[in-house]
């Protein structure tokens, strides 16, 4: 038997496979047994009720997809009354993703959602900060630091900061989140993208632009996860384009302590279950008894830090 357990701060996961926010819900219980997952991660919720973006909200782009779902939300009361109780039936850590458009609302929901049944708050700082120029909090170290500091003060739960690839300051943002008291980083959210129908000449998404996810995002998110793991001491959770066990192993070697699986679940809803058993088989085949032996084992000894942290065209 190989040991698949992994630790994110004080939290122990039975295996390193969990869903990515927005690509998972109670509904998946119709298809797979949710109790086998390393953690449950909910769709980002906001305090107020929100409608989300116009349709079409998704389109596919050669083996990957774009989405502009937005954050439709039934509000925090509905969430506390209906969603948290559903997950309480499982002996699996519950990670609740939250968001807001300004720091005060962020602090309010962070405080109000810190209730029994919630194990971790994932802070989706990849959303626009309306108070400044509408750029996502996680695009800049300063706004990241500001919001995470505020949230750290209002909740005792572990805070995972979810970073965006839409920045040229990946390591600085990662360090800012760590300095402000984040307990882990989730790397990363989707990459801002676009697709146009050449016949109608209309953008394929109702919202014009949207986030790229799926296999084409993987090399980018993997690079970021690697950079972040080098730059901070807190655990990094890899996310972006994972669909095979090789993808999982690659993230672990790059330095991720666990991974999140998003779009692949839309293609094969059984993906996470398959990944868990295939990870076990992979480790057995490599005579590795503990998954933690893989984490951060990338052989990059010869590379200078300046190369690792470079964010320019090579």
């Amino acid at each position: 038997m190989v040991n698949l357990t992994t630790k994110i701060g004080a939290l122990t996961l039975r295996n390193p496979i969990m869903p990515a926010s927005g690509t998972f819900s109670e509904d998946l219980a119709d298809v797979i047994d949710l109790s086998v997952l390393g953690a449950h991660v909910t769709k980002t919720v906001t305090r107020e009720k929100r409608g989300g973006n116009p349709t079409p909200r998704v389109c596919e782009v050669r083996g990957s997809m774009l989405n502009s779902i937005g954050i439709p939300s039934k509000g925090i009361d509905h969430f506390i009354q209906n969603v948290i109780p559903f997950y309480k039936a499982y002996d699996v850590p519950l990670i609740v993703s939250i968001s807001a458009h300004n720091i005060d609302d962020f602090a309010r929901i962070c405080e109000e959602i810190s209730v029994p049944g919630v194990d971790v708050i994932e802070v989706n700082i990849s959303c626009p900060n309306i108070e400044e120029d509408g750029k996502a909090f996680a695009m800049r170290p300063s706004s990241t630091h500001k919001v995470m500091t505020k949230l750290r003060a209002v909740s005792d739960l572990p805070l995972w900061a979810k970073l965006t690839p839409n920045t040229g300051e990946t390591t600085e943002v990662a360090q800012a989140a760590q300095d402000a008291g984040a307990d882990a980083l989730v790397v990363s959210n989707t990459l801002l993208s676009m697709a146009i129908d050449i016949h109608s000449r209309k953008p394929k998404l109702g919202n014009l632009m949207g986030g790229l996810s799926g296999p084409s995002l993987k090399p980018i998110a993997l690079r970021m996860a690697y950079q972040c793991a080098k730059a901070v001491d807190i655990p990094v959770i890899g996310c972006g384009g994972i669909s095979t066990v090789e993808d999982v192993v690659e993230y672990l070697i790059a330095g991720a302590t666990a991974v999140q699986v998003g779009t692949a679940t839309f293609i094969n809803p059984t993906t996470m279950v398959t990944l868990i058993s295939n990870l076990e088989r992979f480790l057995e085949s490599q005579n590795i008894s503990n998954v933690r032996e893989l984490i951060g084992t990338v052989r990059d000894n010869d590379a200078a830090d300046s190369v690792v942290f470079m964010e320019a065209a090579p």
Partner: protein
Amino acid sequence: MELKQRNAEAGTSANGRAFEAETRVKSNREVNGEYRQLILDAPQKILDCQPGQFFHLLCPVTSKHQPYLRRPMSIYGYFPEKGELHFLYKVTGEGTQALAELNEGDTLNVLGPLGVGYTIRDDWNNILLLARGVGLATLAPLAHEARRLGRKLTAICSARNPDVLMSIDLFTEMGAEVITVTDTEGTSDLENVASIIRTKIANGEVDALYTCGSNRMLKLLQDVGAEYGIPGEIALEQQMACGVGMCQCCVRSFRRSGKITHERVCREGPVFDIQEAMGW
């Protein structure tokens, strides 16, 4: 060791509602110039279906076509005794073109059955369904169910020209009274269809109305239904990613107790109350 393999059976459903399952193609033949019928050899567990439900199909990636997301398809027929699952589809873009390339013996990964199907209330003894084009696919299992329940069925089948009128035999076999209307004969206009339905209603032959897909049909049945106080249901389409309720990409607007609500077509639907549905 085969690491790339994806074992669809690995995830056993926790509550037995829907499954990701491998099926085998029994046949995939052209019905006429536009439509194809796909017959799958399917495991028993996925054949406990309701009329109006759908499957989410993982269309094959071929040298010519690279669909990525799954494609939703209404169940055209489910036959547990034969172990068969049928679809009737129109070849339109990347995904359905790839589907059309499937040959006998090929495997196809399907997810389902999904969504909420049609209801036939106990006191709906006379039901009328209005189908156009590939909408027949969605309504055929409803006709089966109506016959099983011993209800009287009227099927109005609308098409561009008489050549593409499909499934008339199927509905006749179900004991339905079939009325065909076509564009080329000039009988499929809304006025004419509405007057056919009004006559049926006046004769006391309609307790419920059913349709699917198009905005025009929706409007028509909403108006006639409201005029005579006759309930009805419509199966709606919307682009889907996950198909099971996780991503919220498939929402549509509905009028419910004076308010506009958003519902997921894949989860709360695809079948909705006809008066609550909103045109688009």
